[in-house]
Each structure stands twice: as structure tokens, then as C-alpha cells.
């Protein structure tokens, strides 16, 4: 906002002073998110053997569903990358299209996750069952809540894109949302590896 000069050699999202500040601020926030999830992982790492009267991970995890979830999220991360790619080409339509595809994949992931939770509750692994289930469901739930938030956020951004097109400000919003979405994918990779695969070997 400080300078109205547009420098076309940098991507749109870096063209406004506020956009740059926001992007850096969001990276700092990502650091906080890293710590937040690390703490949840630490909790899970400490509590996962404490199953009390409830089932163990081996008894309830369904690896097939988890692999599908993983693929959905990995693909959505890829399409989220294409969102930025299209944005930098200045293609609003492509941008919005890929964004919607990403959201659809994210929605699919959430659908699977909700089913997973229902399966757990039926298997006698509710959030109040044991320290293990509490920490498992809280870790998964926090990630799922982030994904949900990401979806609603993207919808808001789509509306703004439709209203305003690609401007330095909307572009920085898309960029920031993109960072967030990839980050959730990173978190999922660790959940996949340490919670599910690690829990089954």
C-alpha cells in the first residue's frame, strides 16, 4: 500500500507492502502451528500405549481407508500448488477451477475422516475411553478442524476473487491459503507415518 508502483518482475502477491508483511507474518504463524502439532504428537507419543480398558490402535486402524485419505490429501496438495501456478499466470478462471477441485478433494478427505470417527466410536473407542483414544482423536480432530477451516477460508477467498480478480491483496490471500493447505498436508504425512503405519507395525 505504501507504494502504488507495481513491479511486474515479482509475483502479484509480493507486489504490495501489506501483502509481503502478511506472507511473512503467516510464515511465523506456521512456526507456531508446527509447535502446536509437535506438542500433540508428543502427547500422543507418550500416551499411545495407555489404552486402559479400550481397544488398541492395531485393533481399530483400517489401513486401506487411511491410504485413501492420504492420497486424497496428497492430490489436493498438488492441485493447491496448481492454484498458485495459475495465479502467477494471471489466469483467474484456472485459479478458481483448481481451487474448487482442491476443496472437493479436501471435502472427500473430511468425509472419510468423519466415517473413520464413527467407526472408532462403534468399535468402542470414543474420546472418553482411554488416554490413547483421547490423544488419538484429539490429534486427528485438530488436524481435521484445520482442514475444515481451510475449506471455509478458501470459499471466502473464492468469493473475493470473483469480486475483485487477482490483485496484490487477493493474490497474497491465495498464496497464504496455499501455504496453509500444504502445511496441513505435511502434518498429515506425519500422522500417517507415526500414528497409522507406526501403530500397525
Amino acid at each position, binding site marked *: 500500500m505504501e507504494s502504488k508502483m507495481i513491479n511486474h518482475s515479482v509475483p502479484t502477491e509480493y507486489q504490495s507492502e501489506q501483502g509481503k508483511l502478511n506472507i*511473512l507474518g503467516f510464515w511465523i504463524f506456521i512456526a507456531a502451528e508446527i*509447535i502446536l*502439532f*509437535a506438542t500433540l504428537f508428543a502427547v500422543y507419543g*507418550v500416551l499411545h500405549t495407555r489404552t486402559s480398558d479400550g481397544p488398541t490402535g492395531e485393533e481399530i486402524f483400517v489401513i486401506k481407508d487411511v491410504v485413501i485419505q492420504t492420497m486424497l490429501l496428497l492430490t489436493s*496438495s498438488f492441485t493447491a500448488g496448481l492454484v498458485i*501456478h495459475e495465479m502467477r499466470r494471471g489466469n483467474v478462471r484456472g485459479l478458481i477451477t483448481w481451487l474448487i477441485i482442491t476443496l472437493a478433494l479436501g471435502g472427500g478427505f473430511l468425509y472419510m475422516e468423519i466415517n473413520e470417527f464413527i467407526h472408532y466410536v462403534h468399535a468402542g473407542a470414543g474420546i472418553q475411553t482411554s488416554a490413547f483414544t483421547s490423544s488419538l482423536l484429539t490429534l486427528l480432530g485438530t488436524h481435521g478442524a484445520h482442514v475444515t477451516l481451510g475449506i471455509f477460508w478458501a470459499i471466502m477467498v473464492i468469493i473475493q476473487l470473483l469480486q475483485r480478480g487477482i490483485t496484490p491483496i487477493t493474490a497474497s490471500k491465495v*498464496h497464504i491459503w496455499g501455504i496453509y493447505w500444504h502445511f496441513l498436508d*505435511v502434518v498429515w504425512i506425519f500422522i500417517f507415518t507415526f500414528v497409522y503405519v507406526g501403530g500397525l*507395525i
Partner: protein
Amino acid sequence: MNSKSHNSFPYTHVVGFLLSIALTIATLFVAFKTGLSAGIVMIIIAGLAVAQAGLQLFMFMHMTEGEDRDTKVVHTVYAVFMAVVIVVGSIWVMTAGHPIH
């Protein structure tokens, strides 16, 4: 950084995507098909997870671009280090020294 590279086919994204799928499959393979001991499997799949996270950070998240790249990189590396301290430290402290509980 420069927008020219974005006019063509998104090679890096496709490569990144394929790599991430490959790494996931590798994880599953190592865990369920090799019959290695649990400890070794954990180490390998942990390594694969870290590789995949790095992939996302560098290929998709645009961490190393923009005028603030040093700040971003240093800060993120610091956070990752602290994350490791928290996870490893907590597990160590909570399991050490309690013979029976």
C-alpha cells in the same frame, strides 16, 4: 521468483506430486512388506516422512522465495528443531526413571 517459469507446464509440481506418491508407497512397502524389525522400520519411515515434508516445504510452499526468505527459512528451521526437542524430550522425560508405573 520470476514469473516467466510459470507460463509453461508446471513441471516442478508434477514431479513433486509423483515423488510424494512414491514416498507414501515406499512407506507402506517398508512397513508391511519387508519384514524388517520394528525399530528399523520406524527409522526408515521417519526418514521418508521428513523427506516428504521437505518436498512440500521447498517445492510447493514457496519457502525459499521473496525478499524475506532468510527470515522464513531460519525461523522455520528453528521451529522444526524445537518441535523435535518437544517430541523427543517429552517422550524421554516421561518414560525415563519410572521402573514401575
